[in-house]
């Protein structure tokens, strides 16, 4: 097992919109602390699931990993090489790809599909003897007919647009593809098509996937390992099957219990979790989850727990819970 992407002690801030004066003057600008102390290792060729509700910082994490946003602390290593090394950013761009939540919006609106999916070759100045043939091959790889190459993004259906974005992401045979909500907006009967396609590509080409989603059932089916993010901190990581079978962190447990169950016989009578995810602007002191936690004790309000390994391959950030 080799490490594909390592994050250690990573934190990230976002600039808060200030007035014109603060932008021009060289004083300290107001910033919002989004990610804190993220330590995570993605392995080569594995599908990793990142779960979090809106406001948990999961999209920011993807942006930081791709070098679209800076980290304020900690280290990022792609294929063993720190991103601060000279030329590392270019190799990161070459070896990673992103699939956005809204596939149509992530395609240049005035560019035909054929051109859009071969764009990575042009960007990295990789000679293509026949761009059209490559476009057709990429489309075939994701199960789309050649005629799609002549279309514009707005002429695609939701499922087709997903496939086109998958084709573009795979164009340069990346080692890591980050997929943000890969099934958002898709009907249940189409969801499976996209997830199956991704798992086939992983098996055939050894692509590593980082799937970011708030949809637990999607993550449960695709990811080998998962991490749960709450207010910018990892609260639990581990193999998917184990975490779902026995969640340690109370937040993970309530997330799993909150998922609506289609079986009326297993209808829930109680409520697994109350309250709302606090705003990042008012990050609770101590453990971030104590405001909603059923187990919260006095120490949780003052002392922030650290992420510790509690079982082989499983880590947890909680004072009280554990195996």
């Amino acid at each position: 097992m080799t490490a594909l992407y390592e994050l250690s002690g990573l934190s990230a801030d976002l600039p808060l919109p200030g007035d014109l004066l603060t932008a021009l003057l060289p004083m300290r600008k107001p910033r919002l602390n989004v990610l804190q102390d993220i330590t995570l290792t993605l392995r080569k060729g594995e599908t990793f699931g990142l779960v979090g509700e809106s406001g948990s910082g999961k999209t920011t994490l993807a942006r930081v990993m791709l070098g679209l946003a800076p980290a304020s602390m900690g280290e990022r290593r792609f294929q063993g090489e720190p991103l601060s090394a000279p030329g590392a950013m270019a190799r990161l761009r070459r070896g990673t790809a992103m699939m956005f939540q809204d596939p149509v919006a992530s395609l240049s609106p005035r560019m035909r599909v054929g051109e859009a999916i071969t764009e990575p070759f042009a960007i990295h100045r990789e000679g293509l003897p026949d761009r059209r043939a490559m476009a057709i091959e990429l489309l075939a790889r994701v199960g789309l007919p050649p005629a799609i190459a002549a279309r514009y993004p707005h002429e695609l259906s939701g499922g087709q647009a997903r496939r086109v974005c998958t084709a573009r992401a795979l164009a340069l045979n990346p080692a890591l593809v980050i997929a943000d909500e890969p099934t958002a907006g898709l009907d249940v009967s189409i969801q499976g098509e996209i997830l199956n396609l991704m798992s086939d590509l992983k098996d055939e080409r050894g692509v590593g996937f980082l799937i970011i989603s708030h949809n637990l059932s999607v993550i449960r089916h695709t990811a080998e390992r998962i991490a749960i993010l709450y207010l910018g901190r990892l609260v639990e990581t581990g193999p998917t099957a184990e975490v779902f079978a026995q969640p340690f962190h109370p937040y993970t447990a309530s997330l799993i219990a909150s998922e609506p169950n289609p079986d009326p016989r297993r209808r829930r009578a109680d409520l697994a979790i109350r309250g709302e995810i606090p705003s990042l602007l008012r990050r609770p002191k101590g453990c971030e989850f104590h405001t909603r936690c059923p187990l919260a004790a006095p120490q949780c309000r003052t002392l922030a727990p650290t992420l510790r390994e509690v079982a082989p391959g499983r880590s947890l950030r909680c004072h009280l819970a554990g195996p």
Partner: protein
Amino acid sequence: MTEPLLQVRDLRVAYGPVQALRGASLNARAGEVVGIVGESGCGKSTLAAALIGLPAPGATVSGEVRIGGDDLLALPEPARRRLRGERVAMIFQDPMTAFNPVLTLGDQLIDFQHRLAEPRAAKRGRARAMLARVGLPDPDLALHRYVHELSGGMRQRAAIAAALLMRPPLLVADEPTTALDVTMEAQILHLLRELRGEHQGAIVIITHHLGVVGELCDRVYVMYAGEVVEEGTVEEIYHTPRHPYTRALIACDPAHVAQGQGHLPTIPGRVPDLAAPPAGCAFAARCPLASARCATPPPRHRFGPTQVAACYAVAP
């Protein structure tokens, strides 16, 4: 049995050549939560609009939507307007659309009661009580807030309060939890479940999410390509689905599939073009049980007192 509160008979809605609804019939009784489930393009949004008597401009509508005996579609607009709010209210996927962004929540909740001849203070008191009932913390403060100052979950609670304010016997909820996170979704579902006990009327939930149906509904109508293909109790639909589409839909739901690697089931093919819908069963092109007879409209087979499926292949 008493007269159903909501009776929809042979409802057809077309936008130009596109036949979005092709003869849907359904009903809902007082005290019942009815789910309408289907994928995009099945006509459920069109149905939702018709249920509150607001079909899209330019749509051709025929059939009946009876709420407490009055056919909403046959009434002139002023009478329809009176029925909306008094007899039927709606909760939308995006609660922002239900509110005016430049008025405070309190002003709007008072304004929604404009038909009542009561002093303003009484209306305000009712608004406050309703906000407290739906679980808004500090309802007095919430009355002074603008909608954009509330979080998504709180907005949806406020929208539910607005809908219930005039105690309409029929509540229509169009994808009420789709825009919410899992933990907020669970809380809104919980709230709706509590309210159904107090609310004497019927609740119609329109959704694509089988989980929402399983958690909330008593009876379900499964829609495909503008038609109701199967109806039954939630128990029947989930545990003994008859129509091949219902079966396929349940099989595809990742929450249903046992955990493990391997492929998720899908439904091959796609929804037929509703500008030229097939004469027979609309699902035939994608159906594993389809045969030549499916080119003519399928019979509606009855399975027990509550379950009906429109299919040749699944005769009881």
